[in-house]
């Protein structure tokens, strides 16, 4: 054969990368090896700070001025990239390696039209004529399924949606027909439905263009969907290398095992299963443990782990792990200890038939949008929340899910009083709460608290943790004045932070710890209802598990009611008792968690469920993709708001004409489960389950 197919596109051998710092060289990546064949997708997973991106940057030699490859080889198409002159590398980068970054907005020039940016690639690299280059770009945009490509070429990046931006970036990366495409968290910033379409696109590129793909992600579900082979990185080392099926179902390294157990799978719920957090955090590369790098966080650590660094060795054909006891881990002989998970078994039936604590009826929150005319003109309103009715019973958890821009956060802000409702009846413990927070009395504020998404921007950077928790404690008179300090210590203990955190400043804490402080502050006044707005979405999976467990514990100990907003359907399913699915300002399905995740589905819920990436290679999902983007809330479609994208409209007579004209009725599947759709319940009941798991073949 002229090109034996076994020349890998990329063969990384014992790569080590260091960054020069004021305190000497810091080894960010050590001894990383992997190969990617032509047309194969290889994933690298790990928590943040594990060196995933450093590996990617070293391949394209983008390490920055202080980064350098200190050891190893990067063989690209059989030739070593290490030590080649910059000029040659620049050629290869432009022509044969392309990279797609996490945030499409940062990869696109905001001041240039998309067409010009894309054509520039061809004009600069291939010396093409403007006209010809533009034609090529339009063709490429069509290939990535961009609607109306000729029009998109004339727009600026801010005029298209996030998913479309990412498509433009991918199209741009493919213009030169690269043999290797490096994708660094390309879907992290996108909604699940958009993410699903981007992942479909990646899979297609792989087969159609024979492009080798190196996919970096922290999301185990995404990795299971796109790739065949996976490398797990921890603290700058490759700790496991295996096929996706092996790594997910029979991990050989305790870190991989722990990662698999700290994310909820779709269908898990809090009454029947646990999340295992990983204690501690990733060690900084300047201060690594002497033995196994994972030893301080490992639940199976033995003395030998502290003394000797394990080598990456082949445990079985095609499956490598860096652990002294890999065989035992693989055989499932080592089990995660139970003391990590709080005692949560009394969670199950509490709150059944309890009184209604919060009820929202026909709430509307409109934002006024400036009229396009200079003088006069009709006022326009962004209908962020439009006729929403939900209720929460005492001690239970309400989950609110939906794509971004569906009004989840506005609903939360309306309840908490940061926005004033335009219309509707909001009642909390029998008190009307349609007043803004500044006019509410202290008792109401005390009983209605919130945990925010981003702990960085909600903690005051110049006050110590202790004083920030002490303030609400004192204001709400939760305890007598003399006991405030003791109460704060108690709260810190409850958050598993300890009294020594009292005097620390927020910048001295990690993301997970900051979020715990945020929770401690919210529960300091012993509120009846806590609203959590995406409390775990900015955290690493291992920390996410710990925070979720903590919230469960708080709920159990204090009997707090919670409203939990998230876009991750697996987390919501795990955490909530009742779920409201929102689309474009309206609730489309409302009911108990288990009912939402089984037929009858609202067509939108069905699409969301089929899009959510599941970290289990055995699962089969129905393939339903929503076309188009969420319509503008300024001028929502008439009738059923979902009709423009609904994949199930054809089930109705006349192609679903009724959906365009008439507002759908609320259909009650059970007493508590209602669906906002024209399609008769019998039809909806007949649909198959979206997610099916193959029979378990072995004990994992």
């Amino acid at each position, binding site marked *: 054969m002229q090109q*034996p197919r076994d020349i890998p596109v990329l063969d990384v051998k014992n790569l080590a990368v260091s960054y020069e710092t004021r305190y000497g060289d810091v080894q960010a990546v050590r001894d990383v090896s992997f190969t990617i064949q032509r047309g194969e997708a290889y994933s690298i997973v790990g928590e943040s700070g594990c060196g995933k991106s450093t590996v990617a940057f070293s391949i394209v030699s983008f390490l920055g001025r202080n980064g350098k490859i200190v050891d190893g080889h990067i063989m690209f198409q059989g030739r070593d990239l290490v030590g080649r002159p910059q000029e040659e590398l620049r050629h290869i980068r432009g022509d044969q390696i392309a990279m797609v970054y996490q945030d499409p907005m940062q990869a696109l020039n905001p001041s240039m039209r998309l067409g010009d940016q894309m054509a520039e690639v061809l004009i600069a690299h291939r010396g093409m004529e403007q006209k010809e280059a533009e034609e090529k770009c339009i063709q490429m945009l069509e290939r990535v399924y961009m609607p109306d490509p000729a029009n998109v070429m004339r727009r600026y990046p801010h005029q298209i949606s996030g998913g479309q931006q990412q498509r433009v970036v991918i199209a741009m990366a493919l213009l030169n027909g690269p043999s290797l495409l490096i994708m660094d968290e390309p879907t992290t910033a996108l909604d699940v439905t958009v993410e699903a379409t981007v992942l479909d696109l990646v899979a297609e590129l792989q087969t159609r263009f024979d492009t080798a793909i190196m996919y970096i992600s922290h999301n185990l579900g995404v990795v299971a969907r796109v790739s065949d082979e996976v490398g797990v990185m921890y603290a700058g080392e490759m700790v496991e290398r295996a096929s996706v099926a092996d790594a997910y179902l029979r991990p050989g390294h305790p870190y991989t095992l722990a990662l698999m157990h700290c994310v909820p799978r779709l269908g898990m719920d809090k009454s029947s299963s646990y999340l295992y957090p990983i204690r501690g955090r990733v060690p900084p590369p300047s201060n690594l443990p002497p033995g196994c790098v994972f030893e301080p966080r490992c639940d199976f650590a033995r003395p030998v782990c502290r003394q000797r660094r394990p080598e990456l060795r082949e445990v079985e054909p095609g499956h490598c792990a860096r652990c002294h006891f890999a065989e035992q881990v693989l055989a499932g002989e080592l089990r995660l200890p139970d003391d990590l998970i709080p005692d949560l078994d009394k969670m199950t039936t509490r709150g059944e038939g309890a009184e209604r604590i919060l009820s929202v009826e026909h709430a509307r929150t409109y934002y006024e949008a400036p009229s396009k005319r200079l003088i006069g003109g009709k006022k326009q309103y962004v209908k962020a929340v439009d006729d929403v009715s939900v209720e929460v019973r005492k001690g239970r958890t309400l989950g609110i899910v939906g794509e971004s821009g569906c009004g989840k956060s506005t609903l939360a802000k309306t309840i908490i009083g940061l926005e004033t409702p335009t219309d509707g009846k909001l009642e909390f413990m029998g008190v009307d709460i349609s007043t803004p927070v500044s006019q509410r009395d202290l008792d109401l504020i005390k009983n209605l608290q919130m945990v925010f998404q981003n702990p960085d921007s909600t903690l005051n950077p110049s006050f110590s943790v202790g004083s920030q928790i002490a303030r609400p404690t004192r204001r709400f008179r939760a305890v007598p004045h003399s006991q405030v300090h003791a109460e704060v210590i108690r709260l810190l203990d409850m958050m598993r932070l300890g009294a020594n955190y009292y005097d620390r400043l927020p910048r001295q804490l990690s993301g997970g710890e900051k979020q715990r402080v945020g929770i401690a502050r919210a529960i300091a006044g012993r509120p009846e209802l806590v609203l959590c707005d995406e409390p775990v979405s900015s955290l690493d999976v291992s920390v996410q598990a710990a925070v979720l467990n903590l919230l469960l514990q708080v709920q159990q100990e204090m009997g707090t009611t919670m409203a939990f907003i998230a876009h991750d359907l697996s987390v919501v399913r795990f955490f909530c008792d009742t779920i409201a699915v929102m689309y474009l300002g309206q609730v489309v399905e409302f009911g108990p968690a288990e009912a939402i995740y089984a037929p009858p589905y609202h067509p939108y819920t069905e699409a969301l469920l089929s899009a959510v990436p599941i970290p289990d290679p055995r699962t089969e999902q129905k393939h339903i993709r929503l076309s188009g983007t969420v319509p503008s809330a300024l001028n929502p479609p008439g009738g059923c708001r979902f009709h423009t994208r609904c994949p199930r409209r054809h089930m109705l007579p006349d192609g679903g004409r009724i959906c365009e004209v008439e507002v759908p009725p609320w259909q009650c599947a059970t007493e508590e489960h209602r669906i906002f759709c024209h399609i008769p319940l019998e039809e909806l009941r007949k649909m198959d389950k979206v997610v099916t798991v193959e029979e378990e073949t072995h004990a994992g």
Partner: protein
Amino acid sequence: MLVKDYMTRHPCMAEPNMSVIEAQRYMWENGIRHLPIVGDGKRLLGLVTRQTLLVDPARLGSLDMWEISRFLSGLTLKDVMVKARDVITVEEDTAVEEAARIMVENRIGCLPVVEGGVVVGIITDTDLLTQLMEMMATRVPGVRVTIRMPNVRGELAKLVAAIGAQGWGILACGGVPVPRQPDTWEAVVKIRNVPGEEVVAALGQVEGQEIVDVREM
């Protein structure tokens, strides 16, 4: 059955200023026989094969030892490659047999696949043999029968009808004129999941046709 289905996408390539010595090592280490030489944007500039890398002894004969080493170390691919204007190329949408004809008539072993001056792949003799192999379903077990028939319209249809009557599936089928016998054709048919005797029994009945060879493979 077009070039794009059988070519190797993303072939290994080299720049014109790579030294001959480095290129030689690169090709040996990776088992490469043909190396397209590309410039910016993967535009085809030339082609290097193992033959082009052989240094003409007559040229070296006139040099002394010191000159030889200087001559060799200074040699780059630019100096030895077949220039782009002399390289025969095909496009992605060329038919595979057309590519084969070009290679046979020019007695060459590879064709760079070029779209708008840019190398998108390479197709070699090995790829064409792979295609022949796939066409004859070599990897799938079955009965392979060779049948000789007169060069008359409708003969192949008779054969196919006979196979169809038995309810068998055809894995692969091909026909060639018999060399030096312009009136006779040979058809090769591969049939799945049947014993050889049954095939002989059924196809032996076809009028005017003769089974030349039967084998299970």
